[in-house]
């Protein structure tokens, strides 16, 4: 009895001393779903927080569903001028009655201006150290100011703006245009020699026309802010922002992001419009999935510059042949496959050229070169980033048609 009593007493004491300190109700917290960082007007930074209004999302205590509508009223934004990100949290408590909490944050939005001029590297510190942040946060680069972006970026289908952010980003799984670098990977890539990160590029809907004529352009030629469209949500997410040494150095269009994703295994599938080799003005549409990760072979040439050969293996399904030309027969298939390879090769070459031009190895080719060096100092001394722009890179693409879709024999229109 004495023994049991002493154990219970000890337990209660321990729990009393250590416990209850963190007890907090969810309705006593302000849930920040996104944070935006801009260059400040009156201070270093303008930080914007998107704070959810749970009762509008969940409905009142009576269990009534939310009123719906254009997502209006389910969140509000607060922008403040602060020297650093974390001091904003303190300031926020002066304006919002509930204690701000960032454990549910989905997006960390940097304005392009801030990312290009100051860089985002120095704002990573608090995120890696501060326990409330989670590393699955997505870092987004937006055109224009982040405060406008977040304030106007209202969901249409969702009540919960957090879900809106999540689902928008989830497009990386089924399109090639949205890069998948969560904060975790972004941070790792930033800290590693031989690879550079790419963050998703976002923008508000552009009101005036982007292009002046209607010449054919591949669909992946667009990027956020230059998407010719009418209607839809305010936010568009497409293309990427390439970083070098923590600073944004350039943008990638949708196709380039697709190539970048292929090198990291995050490209699940994409649809490619290939100009018909025998019927100009017609497209062949194929479905493309990677067959294996790109095989990269790096050699250091006699001039000390890297010589890189890349072998890309793809496969896929014929989705549509506009011209009605019969490409499905075994002897005709190579025609189609070569057309796809040519189109893809062009994309890859364009991307490689872009990365060499920016001097940012966002394809991660340096990771394959690293193994040629026996020690870390040797690798650092080699200075990959300096040599990479002058590297010789040859790419070969191998595409195989595996399936022809539901029609196995094309009959031309009569």
């Amino acid at each position, binding site marked *: 009895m004495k*023994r049991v009593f002493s*154990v219970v007493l000890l337990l209660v004491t321990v729990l009393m001393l250590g*416990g209850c300190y963190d007890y*907090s109700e969810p309705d006593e917290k302000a849930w920040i779903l996104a944070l935006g960082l801009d260059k400040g007007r009156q201070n270093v930074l303008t930080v914007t927080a998107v704070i959810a209004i749970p009762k509008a999302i969940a409905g*009142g205590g009576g269990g009534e569903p939310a009123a719906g509508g254009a997502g209006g009223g389910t969140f509000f934004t607060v922008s403040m001028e602060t020297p650093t990100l974390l001091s904003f949290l303190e300031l926020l408590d002066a304006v919002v009655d509930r204690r701000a909490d960032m454990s549910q944050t989905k997006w960390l939005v940097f304005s392009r201006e801030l990312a290009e001029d100051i860089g985002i590297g120095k704002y990573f510190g608090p995120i890696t150290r501060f326990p409330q942040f989670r590393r699955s946060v997505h870092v987004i680069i937006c055109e224009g100011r982040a405060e406008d972006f977040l304030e106007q970026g209202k969901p249409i289908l969702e009540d*919960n703006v957090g879900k809106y952010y999540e689902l928008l980003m989830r497009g990386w799984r089924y399109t090639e245009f949205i890069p998948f670098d969560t904060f975790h990977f972004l941070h790792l890539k930033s800290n590693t020699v031989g690879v550079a990160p790419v963050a998703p590029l976002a923008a508000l809907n552009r009101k005036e026309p982007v292009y002046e004529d209607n010449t054919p352009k591949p669909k992946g030629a667009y990027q956020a802010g230059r998407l010719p469209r009418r209607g839809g949500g305010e936010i568009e997410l497409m293309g990427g922002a390439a970083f070098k040494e923590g600073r944004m150095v350039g943008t990638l269009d949708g196709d380039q992001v697709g190539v970048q994703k292929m090198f990291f295994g995050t490209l699940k599938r994409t649809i490619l419009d290939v100009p018909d080799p025998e019927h100009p003005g017609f497209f062949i549409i194929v479905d493309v999935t990677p067959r294996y990760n790109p095989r990269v072979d790096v050699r250091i040439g006699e001039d000390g510059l890297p010589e890189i050969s890349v072998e890309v293996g793809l496969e896929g399904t014929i989705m549509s042949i506009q011209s009605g030309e019969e490409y499905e027969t075994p002897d005709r298939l190579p025609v189609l496959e070569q057309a796809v390879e040519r189109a893809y090769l062009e994309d890859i070459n364009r991307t490689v050229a872009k990365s060499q031009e920016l001097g940012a190895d966002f394809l991660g080719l340096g990771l394959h070169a690293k193994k040629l060096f026996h020690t870390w100092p040797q690798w650092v001394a080699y200075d990959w980033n300096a040599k990479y722009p002058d590297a010789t890179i040859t790419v070969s693409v191998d595409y195989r048609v595996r399936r022809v879709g539901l029609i196995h024999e094309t009959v031309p229109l009569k």
Partner: protein
Amino acid sequence: MFSWLKTLSKFIMYQKPQPAPSVFESGIEDRPLEEGEKAKAKAKAGGNGGSDTDSNDSGQANQDQHQLRDGEQNSRKNGSRKRNSRRGKQRNAAIQEKYSDKVAENQDIDQILNQKVELSYRLEENKQVLEKLFRVPENKDAVFRSLSIGTEPPAQAMLVFIDGITNAQVQNLAVLQPLMLLSGARDIRQNRKGDTPAEAGVFLQGQECPRLGADSGGGEPVNKETSPFLDFFDRVKQAVLPNNQVAEGRTYDQVVYDVLNGNSALFIEGYNQALLLETKGWHFRSVSPPQVEAVIRGPQEGFTEMLRVNTTLVRKIIHRPSLVTEFVKVGDAAPMQCAVMYMADIANPDLVKEVKRRLESIRADYAHQAGLVEQMIEDNPLHMVPQVLTTERPDRVASNVLEGKVAVLVGGNPFVMIMPCTFFNLMQSPEDAYVRWPFGAFMRLIRYAGLFLALLLPAHYVAIVAYHQEFIPTDLLMAITGAREKVPFPSIVEVLIMEAAFELIREAGVRIPGTIGTTLGIVGALILGQAAVAANIVSPILIIVVAVTALGSFAIPNYSFSLSIRLLRFVYILLASLSGLLGILVGVFIHVGVMSTVKSFGVPFLAPAAPVTRKGRDYFLRGPVWQQETRPDYLDPLKTKRQPQISRGWLNGGDGKGGKERL
């Protein structure tokens, strides 16, 4: 000062078990094994036992009995001196003084029983003593029926019984009628040997001459060569009374006990013995479907309040002569019959001995129900878990007895205790075995999930909502937060309110009279459901939590175990409110740790998982029945194999008798 630290460390640290004489004697390995003391104890026990048998053998019991009782009291006093002295103070001296004559009278009467005073030869004296014992004429239950046995000349006799618990018809037809009307009709000697009636007269003269005892009465007028009977008394017993169970009583104690059990005692003038006749006939509930442990497939009969019916129900299933039913008298002031059932060729004799030892040692006024006996014989009364498996299903008792366990049936209670019992037994239902094994295994999984939910779901709700909001998907968090906006209490208060309300409804549901039972449903549904939410007392999500918790606790098949889960749930809720998931983790750690120290009749409660022993296919999930070849290892049965390796003989295309291996 740091003694608690020491005790704590002792508690935490593993102690190497000492070799024990009987593994089922619980806690024996925790006791210090000092040779001197042990030998002393053994000697003492032996001495006591010896004196007991001596006193029984020699007729002059009084002196020895006194000594024995004193000795027992002394030994008890040594065991718990403190408690005894306290009891002494509580004695009500004033009342005892006031009614000192009454007390003395009661003591005198008790002496007759305790000292096992033998019956008298005189019928009148027997009657007087019995009247004193039964407090006649105040007591109207005891009936003394005088009669004369219809022989020539008539013999005076007396039938003693308690009205209401005997079967009047049996008494009339099988006792009184043959005695009074037919006793002379069939003199076996006449029929067989053609003896003259005169000799019968001589035979009857025997009653005039007092005998010392049945064995010494051989020299009496009864001619052994010609008569199959020893004397008149024997003849009545052997030839006159067509009663299925007849015993002889020699002491008042014996007679009184039998009469109280519904038998009738027949006294005959001139004999210091009584015939105890089976005339039990009280009213009891007939065998009906089990109330608590219902199954869909399987026998639909449960135990009743009749001990004899219950033993029959088990024997009906196990047709083996080795199924032993032993009767043990339990209790002091009002002793009660307990039946101990086991397979003599399977159960470990140590286990049987230990069960009987514990039952016999019980001293209590009222230990007439299984629940009371359970509390008297369990190993660790301070622990939450039941250490005895209670069931009202004969088939479950049968299967457990065949595993090598021991069943204790308590008179007047439809619940049978099975021991030893482990955690996994408590989570099983007979249904598991009666459906095909994948479904049996699935049902068990569901039940374990129910256990987890009943014990930990509200605690997890509190912990996650109050401490770990980052666990919650944003949408759900928004739903929880939005629903809580107007609730004025913290989550922990909210949970406690709802859990308390639910416990209240459950308790009220058990106690509520059946005729107004439906009201409870309405009230419960309104309070727990809509109204509480509409009034913003609790959030709707919590209703789901409480409802699922309730369902989980109803899925636990053992009522007693489910009670302990109900109680521990609140402990976990408090732990969660103090330090979140860490608190729950600490709680589970201690809970499982404590549970692993519990023993049921020497068998660790978590066996065979902790300590790890050989496992059958039927401890956590349910395996195919043809794979269950061994009996539980922790029972240490005399036969470990339950069925041969190939239990489905037809697989070999053989004679259907299975493999050559026979059990």
